[in-house]
């Protein structure tokens, strides 16, 4: 049974997709756990991932949807970088986890990283570039032409590497409904933006996909929206509708963009509820299936008038956006609106697991108490 795990990392993303075939795909990685903080509620992502991997030492695919640090934090202390020697040795006595295949949007290769960007972003970029040069272990999502300039500058023959590049509007190679019970359709980065913009914008050039899971002929669709803003969503809806591929806009599970930011819905945050622009409204309200699950990978939702809410330029999540998703998207569908840091409770959040079967998506609400709780965790130190 396919399973999707959203890790509780506050305003950061890491989502693991487990397929019935045993393949594992990780979208983004952000180790933000502060082990010495008693009040820490974010999960220890490397520990969670290692617990799940068991003896396994690899992911079939690791996708970095864009190079913001809430999507890669700590990656150089966890993954094995094929092309960077210093990121190959053990970490705390544990072997690094291999990324059999790396998925990145073109910007990860082409953007020029400056002083503001940390060594980890640079490491991921170097790894992606070297893999691309080596023609192994990478897929770049882009209109091919977008890579031309960088290839020319770096003496890389793009024609020889066309097989490593997948444009928007296509299905990512390597997974099929038949063999894996899933296919990944690429929505972004798409050509219109890539043609228009001269200045690269990470969030809006991020990797956006719709995954369709098939179990006993029943489809369940997951929309992974990274950190894109409303304008990109409008474009995605428009382009996809124009190409008559409305089924690619449908969703049963929606990973909200940018930690429940109002900017994914429209320009105006609103007093109590954000009003989305028409095409965004359509994506959420029309293309969402009954009983669908909306997931905000974010901090808890602020309450009106609290410190976070009162900030002038408040960071996400925004309660007005949450009100929209909860009241106008989830409720009318008799679905669910879930916030990673509030599941199962804000006091003690845990990774949110969605199982997929012939009854489509089920948010797992497992109460683990007593002895079961004791044996599922490492015991405190004894004297």
């Amino acid at each position, binding site marked *: 049974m396919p399973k999707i795990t959203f890790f509780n990392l506050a305003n950061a993303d890491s989502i693991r997709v487990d397929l019935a075939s045993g393949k594992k795909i990780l979208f983004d990685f952000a180790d933000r756990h502060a082990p010495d903080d008693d009040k820490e509620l974010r999960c220890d992502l490397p520990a969670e991932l290692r617990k799940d991997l068991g003896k396994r030492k690899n992911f079939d695919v690791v996708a970095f949807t864009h190079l913001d640090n809430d999507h890669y934090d700590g990656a150089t202390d966890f993954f094995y970088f094929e092309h960077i020697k210093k990121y190959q040795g053990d970490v705390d006595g544990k072997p690094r986890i291999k990324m059999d295949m790396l998925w990145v949007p073109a910007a990860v290769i082409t953007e020029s990283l400056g002083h503001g960007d940390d060594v980890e972003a640079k490491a991921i970029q170097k790894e992606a570039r070297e893999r691309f040069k080596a023609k192994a272990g990478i897929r770049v999502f882009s209109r091919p032409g977008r890579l031309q300039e960088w290839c020319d500058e770096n003496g890389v023959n793009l024609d020889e590497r066309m097989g490593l590049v997948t444009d928007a509007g296509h299905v990512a190679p390597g997974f099929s409904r038949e063999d894996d019970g899933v296919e990944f359709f690429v929505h972004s980065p798409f050509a219109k933006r890539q043609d228009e913009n001269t200045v690269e914008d990470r969030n809006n050039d991020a990797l956006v996909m719709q995954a369709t899971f098939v179990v006993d002929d029943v489809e*369940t669709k997951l929309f992974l929206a990274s950190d894109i803003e409303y304008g990109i969503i409008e474009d995605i809806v428009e382009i996809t509708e124009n190409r008559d591929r409305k089924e690619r806009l449908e969703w049963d599970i929606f990973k909200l963009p940018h930690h429940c930011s109002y900017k994914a819905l429209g320009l105006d945050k609103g007093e109590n509820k954000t009003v989305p622009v028409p095409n965004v409204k359509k994506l959420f309200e029309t293309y969402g299936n009954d009983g669908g*699950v909306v997931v905000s990978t974010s901090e808890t939702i602020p309450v009106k008038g609290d410190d976070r809410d009162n900030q002038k330029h408040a960071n996400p999540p925004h309660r007005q956006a949450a009100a929209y998703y909860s009241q106008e998207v989830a*409720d009318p569908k008799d*679905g669910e609106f879930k916030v990673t840091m509030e599941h199962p409770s804000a006091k003690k959040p845990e990774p949110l697991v969605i199982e997929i079967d012939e009854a*489509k998506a089920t948010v797992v*609400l497992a*109460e683990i108490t*007593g002895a079961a709780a004791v044996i599922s965790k490492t015991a405190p130190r004894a004297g």
Partner: protein
Amino acid sequence: MAKDMNFISPDGVLVDVDALVLPRAKQCAVILASGILNFTRLLECRVSESGGRHEILVIEVDVQRPQKRVHDIHSCERIAVIFDESDSQIPETLSLREDFPRVAHLNLRRHEKPRSLCLEERPWDDMKLDWTVPGHIELIRSWLSRTSRGELHQPDQPLEPLLFGSGYHIVIPDDVTRPEAGGGQQKLHIVLRGTTEEGRVLVARHLADAPKDAGGLAFASLTLECGPVVHGVIWSCPETIQELIALVIDVGLDLRDQLLRGLTGLQQDDAKSLDSGLVLIIRFLKQRDVDQKIEAIETKAFLTFSTVRDIGVALGCWAIHDGHAVPFVGGDMPSPNGEGIPIITANVHHTLTPSGAAYLNGRDFEEPVKVAAIGAGALGSQLQMNLARAGFGQWTIIDDDWFFPHNIARHELNKFAVGQNKALGVAAELNCLHDGEQIASMLPANILRPGGMEELVSRSLNEADVILDAAASVPVSRHLAKHASNARRVSVFLNPTGTDLVLLAEDKDRRVRLDCLEMQYYRLMATRAEMAHHLELPAGQVRYGLGCRDLSSRMPQDLLSIHAGIGSRAVQTTLASNDARLEVWQVDAPAMTVSSVNAEPMEVFWQEHPGGWLCAIDKHVLQRVADLREANLPNETGGVLIGAYDMASKIVYVVDALDAPPDSEQWPTLYVRGSDFLAERIAKIEKATAGRLVYIGEWHSHPDGCPTLPSGDDVKVFSWLTQHLAVESKPALMLIAGQHRASRLFLWEIADKPEELS
């Protein structure tokens, strides 16, 4: 999040958690109020004093439910859990949602709402042992979750009962509950057998079968059928005929109409019927879902102690004038519907038939095997009872022995049989198992000396499909082996200490006869290490004669019981196959583990010889001499033959061949059998088999190209043998093994050429 919806208000008055006194309610409230559980919240506590103290917790639970739902279960449901002061049942769990769907596993209460969730099949007393608050909450959440998926009732799970029992049970003759067997209307005699605080057991028989002096009451019975009814909702038991009529009308039974007709029939039939009680037997045809096949039938009895006369009045069937029932005619018929006639719902138990017994034993029932059972001793009686309980066999028990008090220690019979013939006692017990036709008859005969019963004994052996010998007697087995009956023989007996059970079973075509299997069993004893202690005697006991089946007088019943269990299973599995079987089960007494030793029964050749002698030799011996011959070529070789005599029937059984003693002389055209260690080897065999296997003759081989006919020297050896054995009236026996693994056997005298064997 909870949506706007209507909730049913539970009973009782609002109280604080502190005001709760029932331990489970309090524990539950405290834990929920602490907020430690993620998916459950305590909304309020209530106390009701109606019908004893009840403490009610109103809670809200989050439900794990799939996107695609079979039943409309909400992500958050409001539930009342009612703790009862008596703590005698699982706390009742109600959905307070007004529009909670009607689904499977609900208890039907007098009021349809709030709906009552049937959480567990396990008895509450059992659940109490590991009851915890989170565990109970999880039961509720899991019930809701699985209901939302439509998975609460698994496809391979049996259907739910329609009605929970009331504590009353009634045993009813099998034919009364089956309409096709003439159910309909019957006259029954019902006695009250068992009474406890919690229930009553009633036993019904046909009125005609009831003994005159038996207490009890006469009842008229009416068997009806209704349905189909989709299982899932569990009804509460109706308390009056009126309620029953209302209950079954929804599942297609116009009970009032049926009763009117039935009662009128009874009245016309027999005036005495008016004074009898009434039992309604209703067969509910159950299906898993609408449009699915009838998967099970639930039969319930509804008894009323009101008389047919009063019921008729209550149903408007007739009026009573001067003690007579006067039917209503024409338009003045009122239409009351049984108001005020109380009824009791009883679980129906059918009397057991052999086919029912077979089913309950996990067997396919076939036409009963006709068994002539010889010996109704400790093992025999228990074995016969085991088999009969499994619905196996149509029995003739043959034994002339008496049942004495000491037999009780290890016998199927009890002190009431003391002084009776064992066969009589066992046959009577077997016939007490089931209703209907008798499954056992008996002959109080000694099989070896039947006297005046010879014809009866012979007939029962001849008519049997199987002769099951549990007489623990070699002469009986030999006698049975030679009897003219075509029935397949199966012999079971114990070793002297009772640790081992032996089964010797002929093949269906009787190619390997019981007496030959006996010989192969001796060979097993003589050759297999596991059998070393097989014939050991109990401490302090001395063997006399050839008593390898002597039973100790001190032997634990538990060993016998184990062997009777193994034996009854082995008899069934053996008869299911056409092959012969030779197997010994050994109980390692301290550990009580059982292991088995067996040998494949070998094909037997019978040959007639001069002097009226018969010889039985099996393939094992022929293979053995052929192997030894080939191993010693080009030299001749030989040795002695081991076997047994049946002097009375002039039979020699050749069971084994020993190889050449070390001091033998072996040349290409000459063999002289030595004697070093020979006596010791034979003594060892005799000891291992309690003297059943002895020296019987000589064998030697001839080289290739030389016939298996005696040479001049061989003739001399033969006359030397004759000379020595004549004293015991035993025949000389010589076997010559030749080329192509063929052998020839000479017995009594060397006259014409017996056929070669291979």
